[in-house]
């Protein structure tokens, strides 16, 4: 025992004396990550984290700069035909594929895009990105996937020659370019795909790189190492020589301390510890960018399917009453509950439209500021109005046979601390305004695994904070959660997977709701068919979306809060886009000696806002 202790002490002393080696190479960026990617295969996976390696090692046809403008990538130029059905891309010549050791393998040609598309559309490889080809309206893509078309030559992805690539769509698709930064439209070295099939990209030895970095090491749940690809066409814009991502399941707890000790160059600061950091290390706190690629909104469930003890039938009557919905919407102080997500400046992420602000613009006018949205702000928090609505709703609902208080089952995901806290604040605030004689908010913790199928899709909620992510840069993508869903056998509505409002279209039980929905769906259809005039198209979509807000069918809420962090990167230099993988790229970002100070951050932020024209 004594000997052992002595041994340990000696070891300790030795380690104490040894000077820790400073990182030998310059420009090494080290960060922790807490959950491993499930695959490197950027052609099949669809989760943001899985994209990260692919986004950094494979280039896309087009890219976004740091203020969200489309710039050339692997394609130097492109044009669209008169009829808007054929998109032609002219590829950059002399781009090469490299294996994980950095050895050159072959040239990047148009055929690599065709091979990748074929891979995505082959059911055997079970790609979860196939839907992007359907969203982009690529000719015969869905038919090939379904087996109705067997010759891939009939699909609208063609290599005219080695450096000319064509995408043919079956109807005008104004947003096609924005689809091109998705994994599904990335190239992959044809012969390798052919050879490996389902084994493609199961390890870093089994994929080739043509992007800003080369993935030289991939040890799952140990580390990822990216090394700058010096031969890349855009190498001068890559300022980091080496990226080391180290796995640690407790990264959320350990990373901040490790950053202070100088062991890592980046750490996320969760909302629980941010107060402490502000008190003790205020100089090195910076924030991420709030990106409008995900939008959060509160849904009212029109087809409740939960246990009788929470009164689903009572809720069904209440939710179909416009005054009731308005009373909730007016009583709901969104910035209060949002403090669980964004403690300091909830206004910065608050959204008054489902389509987030700065997502897209028509003729310089932001979508969220188009004419149809004028006056929608009247619907938001106003305690006095809420009580007026409450009085009217109580009268009408009592007549309709509704009993008070109405139970509102507020569903959230157990284990998600921020969401849990938000729900607690929501309940307290809403009941405070409307009174517990009127409503009773019940918090319902859904399971942490397979959460959506157990709750939202099963209809186990009265109100819930839902979210949707953009697939491409067009307002159509934000209408998807509300698209009608019709049972092919009965011909009846089975409830769109979000708020199930379309069930009120069947039968005549709720004429008021039915009218709103009929008008809404008609407007969306009209908007979809306007393909030649961006302003008209966007205005029509705005008109439809405004209907949902003005009738209190959906309550717009926020976009993902920009997390607090300590970092040595200036994130405002990074690529910025509301869809695709661009935001995940390290390209353009410079690595600083020290952590970005609060001042530097603020200056960079203001500069960026100015550049964005805000």
């Amino acid at each position, binding site marked *: 025992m004594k000997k052992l202790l002595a041994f340990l002490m000696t070891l300790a002393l030795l380690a104490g004396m040894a000077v820790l080696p400073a990182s030998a190479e310059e420009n090494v960026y080290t960060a922790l990550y807490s959950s491993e990617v499930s695959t490197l295969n950027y052609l099949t996976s669809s989760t943001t984290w899985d994209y990260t390696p692919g986004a950094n090692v494979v280039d896309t046809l087009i890219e976004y700069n740091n203020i969200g403008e489309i710039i050339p990538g692997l394609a130097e130029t492109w044009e669209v035909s008169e009829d808007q059905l054929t998109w032609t891309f002219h590829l950059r010549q002399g781009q090469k594929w490299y294996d994980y050791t950095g050895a050159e393998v072959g040239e990047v040609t148009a055929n690599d895009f065709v091979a990748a598309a074929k891979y995505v559309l082959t059911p055997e490889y079970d790609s979860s990105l196939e839907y992007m080809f359907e969203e982009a309206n690529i000719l015969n893509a869905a038919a090939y996937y379904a087996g109705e078309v067997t010759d891939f030559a009939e699909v609208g992805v063609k290599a005219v020659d080695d450096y000319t690539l064509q995408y043919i769509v079956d109807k005008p698709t104004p947003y096609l370019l924005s689809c091109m930064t998705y994994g599904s439209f990335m190239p992959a070295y044809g012969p390798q795909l052919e050879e490996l099939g389902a084994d493609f990209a199961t390890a870093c030895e089994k994929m080739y790189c043509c992007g800003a970095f080369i993935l030289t090491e991939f040890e799952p749940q140990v580390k990822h190492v990216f090394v700058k690809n010096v031969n890349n066409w855009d190498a001068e814009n890559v300022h980091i020589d080496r990226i080391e991502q180290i796995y640690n399941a407790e990264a*959320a*707890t*350990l990373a*901040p*301390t490790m950053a202070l000790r100088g062991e890592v160059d980046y750490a996320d600061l*969760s*909302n*629980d*510890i941010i*107060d*402490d*950091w502000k*008190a*003790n290390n205020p100089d090195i706190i910076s924030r991420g960018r709030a990106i409008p690629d995900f939008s959060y909104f509160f849904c009212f469930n029109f087809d409740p399917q939960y246990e009788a003890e929470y009164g689903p039938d009572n809720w069904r009557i209440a939710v179909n009453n416009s005054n009731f919905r308005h009373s909730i919407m007016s009583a709901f102080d969104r910035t*209060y509950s949002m*403090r*669980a997500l964004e*403690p300091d400046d909830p206004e910065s992420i608050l959204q008054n439209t489902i389509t987030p602000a700065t997502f897209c613009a028509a003729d310089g006018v932001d979508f969220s500021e188009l004419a149809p949205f004028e006056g929608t702000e009247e619907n938001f928090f106003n305690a006095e109005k809420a009580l007026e609505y409450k009085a009217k709703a109580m009268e009408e609902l009592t007549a309709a046979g509704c009993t008070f208080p109405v139970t509102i089952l507020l569903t959230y995901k*157990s*284990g998600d*601390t921020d969401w*849990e*806290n938000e*729900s*607690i*604040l929501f309940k*307290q605030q809403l009941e405070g305004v409307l009174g517990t004689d009127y409503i009773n908010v019940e*918090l*319902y*913790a*859904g*399971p*942490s*695994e*397979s959460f959506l199928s*157990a709750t939202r899709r099963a209809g186990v909620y009265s109100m819930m904070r839902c979210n949707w992510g953009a697939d491409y840069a067009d307002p159509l993508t934000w209408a998807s959660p509300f698209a009608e869903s019709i049972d092919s056998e009965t011909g009846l509505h089975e409830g769109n997977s979000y708020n199930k409002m379309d069930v009120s279209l069947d039968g005549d039980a709720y004429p008021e709701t039915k009218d709103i929905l009929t008008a809404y769906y008609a407007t969306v259809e009209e908007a979809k068919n306007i393909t030649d005039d961006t302003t008209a198209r966007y205005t029509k979509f705005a008109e439809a979306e405004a209907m949902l807000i003005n009738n209190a069918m959906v309550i717009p809420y926020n976009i993902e809060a920009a997390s607090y962090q300590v970092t040595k990167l200036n994130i405002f230099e990074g690529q910025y886009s509301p869809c695709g993988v661009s935001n995940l790229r390290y390209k353009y970002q410079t690595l600083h000696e020290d952590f970005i100070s609060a001042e530097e951050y603020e200056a960079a932020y203001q500069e960026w806002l100015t550049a964005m024209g805000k």
Partner: protein
Amino acid sequence: MALLKHPKVEALENSLSAQLKRDLSEKELFSFAPFDEEEAELTGASNYSYWRSTLHAFSKNRVAMFLLALMLIIVLFTFIQPLLPGQYDAFVVTNGDNGLPLKNKQPSAEHWLGTNSIGQDLWARLWSGTRTSLFIGLACAMIEACVGILMGVLWGYVRKLDFLFTEIYNVLDNIPSTIILILISFILKPGVGTIIFAMSLTGWIGMARFIRNQILIIRDRDYNVASRCLGTSTWRIIVKNLLPYLVSVIMLRMALSIPGAIGSEVFITYIGLGLPATVPSLGNLINEGRKLMMSPSLRYQLIYPTIILSIVTISFYMIGNAFSDAADPKSHV
């Protein structure tokens, strides 16, 4: 306890007086009384009571008695605390003057143990959580003990069942409880009942194996072989020969399984399958605190629940040890 008559003495008195008081016909009075084995045994009973002696020995251990009292007080206090004047509700977020939540406030006169990261009173949450956790611990320990002892004794003693039970044990013990926990979380909604059910579903297996091995060690000792030879029934051997022998280890194990269950609740919360934060428990509080541990000024949120958990664990450990010492008949003389 001392006021109560020993049951054997009582039974003997009753049967005698019944015999005497009965109005029997002449014929019956002069017939042979049947031989009653049980009553014959009773006449030989001494005044020694195992349990009374055990309690007596236990009550001499001052530390254990103090901790027992402390536990009772804690349990009682978890119920009384919300009724005391000037207490905050464990679920209500306190708003400051600006109408915003008072979050992460250090312990003060207002909030005795400070507030958590959304502004709920930690003092109130601590007691609410202690109540929940103690309930979970007690419930699990009881279920574990009842099912475990029953199964363990049958498994260890009845050789015919050994094959079947070993097989069942091997199967159940090797189905990872994570799978069962997650499946249950799909079927039932997260809550106290669910967590007790999920933990008990597999919790008794360890106890059963423990008892079985103990039984196996003493099953074929000479006094048991002798008992069997004399024709004592299996049930009687189990209850009179085997279990009293094991009382001390069973008690220790049971006492430890209460904090054990609370501990596994901490673990279940750690892997993300615990109670929702709307139901405070020590597991919840510790895991919330754990995330803040690296920030010294917020560490109070971790320290207090850990202290309570430690007190509970120490108390049960000491009480269990003292009781198992007291339960040893050799210390009764």
